[in-house]
């Protein structure tokens, strides 16, 4: 691998890892508090991309405004899921929670296929960010990647401020660690759960838009792979730990990109097999992940 290729792949990996991180944060937040693995999180991502697509179709508003509306839509979707599907079964066994989230995921996917059609749609990525920037020395990086990395890092910085400086953010960390103690302290657990869904869904919405811009096309099943990868990232980092999820996401992003770059051509098709093989090894040898605690607590 030449130096210029290495540099290009580095930015690529950061970009991919950033998207995984945005998705993984929402998974980790919700899991931390509810012990719920929210597979429907991928559908939130998909709906963020589709909402943005349709708002751009219907209006002539600038892309940034359309994207913000798309993200607000995902927040509404996330809150609706919480209220309709997850609140009624709160405290149920883990298996029931998992099956419910799979059910929600499948229901939303199929509704989306019926409403939006199976055919991929061209995502309205603004021309300004579809370009490549030439950094000299044969290194070309796409503006999409730069925007992705910038947006993701800014959101993560905001999230860090939120969970360390605000009462609601600190309450959220407390509830993730010990929900019963949090309730005994007077924390309204519903407020915390709603906030976790709102923030997680907003991040997934942003990820959906960035994914749309990266791939160029969107389709109703587009949420499945990112949420699976985000799930792997949270397992690597330690389920329920937000910093762990982010670290896991970047490890995964780099792993995928460099695996493809380094593997002989006829093996690159097995990229995901390597990734999920690594997941199995992690589950065998360090099931609590990098930052996870060894003693998960339940509500």
């Amino acid at each position: 691998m030449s130096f210029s290729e290495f540099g290009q792949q580095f930015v690529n990996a950061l970009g991919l890892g950033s998207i995984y991180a945005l998705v993984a944060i929402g998974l980790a937040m919700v899991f931390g508090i509810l012990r719920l693995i929210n597979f429907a999180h991928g559908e939130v991502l998909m709906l963020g991309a589709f909402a943005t697509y349709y708002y751009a179709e219907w209006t002539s508003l600038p892309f940034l405004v359309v994207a913000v509306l798309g993200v607000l839509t995902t927040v509404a979707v996330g809150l609706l899921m919480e209220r309709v599907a997850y609140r009624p079964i709160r405290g149920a066994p883990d298996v029931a929670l998992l099956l419910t989230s799979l059910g929600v995921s499948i229901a939303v996917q199929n509704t989306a296929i019926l409403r939006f059609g199976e055919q991929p749609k061209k995502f309205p990525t603004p021309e300004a960010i579809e370009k490549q920037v030439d950094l000299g020395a044969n290194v070309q990086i796409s503006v999409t990647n730069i925007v992705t990395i910038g947006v993701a890092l800014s959101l993560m910085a905001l999230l860090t401020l939120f969970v360390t400086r605000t009462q609601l953010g600190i309450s959220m960390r407390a509830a993730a660690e010990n929900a019963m103690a949090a309730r005994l302290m007077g924390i309204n657990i519903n407020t915390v759960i709603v906030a976790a869904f709102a923030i997680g869904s907003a991040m997934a919405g942003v990820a959906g838009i960035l994914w749309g811009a990266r791939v160029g096309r969107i389709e109703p099943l587009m949420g499945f792979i990112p949420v699976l990868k985000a799930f792997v990232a949270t397992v690597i980092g330690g389920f329920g730990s937000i910093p762990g999820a982010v670290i896991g996401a970047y490890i995964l992003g780099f792993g995928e990109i460099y695996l493809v770059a380094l593997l002989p051509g006829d093996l690159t098709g097995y990229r995901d097999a390597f990734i999920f093989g690594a997941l199995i090894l992690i589950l065998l040898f360090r099931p609590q992940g990098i930052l996870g605690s060894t003693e998960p607590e339940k509500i």
Partner: protein
Amino acid sequence: MLTLEDVRISYGAIQAVKGISLNVGERELVALVGSNGAGKTTTLRTISGIFRPRTGRIVYEGRDLTKLAPHQIVAAGVVQAPEGRQIFGSLTVRENLMLGAVSRRDRAAIPADLERVFDLFPVLKERLGQAGGTLSGGEQQMLSIGRALMARPRLLLLDEPSLGLAPLIVARIFDVIARLKAEGVTILLVEQNARKALEVADRAYVLETGLVALSGSARELAANPEIERAYLGG
């Protein structure tokens, strides 16, 4: 101030509390003693709204607590330092204390209350920036009580504050409990260490397998030969 009327609590098919009636008067320190599995912790958690009783009423200053969510019960002034301390190990001591004040509307009074907690437990002031999980067992118990005090309880529920602590620390904790009582905080104290509990309490209830077996003034109960044999190891 607090009255429980024939409260029954079940987990699935298991009846943990089979009909408890008790009351706690203003400025009183009432102890709930009894062996493991007698239903003491279940009773406290039900008062705090974590569990719902199957039947019966829990009335605090005229309000039925069984209709309120845990955070509303804290806001009403009933605050618990739970069994096993349950401090937030990954949060700093300061964050733990500030979480105790989550339900407070009078934000301006919080710094003064923080000073009061430091006055009771000076060691917490030295540990402010440390993660709660790095504290010793005794310090964690102090943090747990301090955190509850930050909510300005009018009725403080203490669940096994002496559990697993060295005798010297237990004595310190009980000194603080006596001091809080002297300052006018009403306390409902759950303890396996019946001897210690009866020393500080005004009155006590003895729980046995989900029922009140005996009740009376702490002095009477401490002198009762039956109690002496069963709980005081005499």
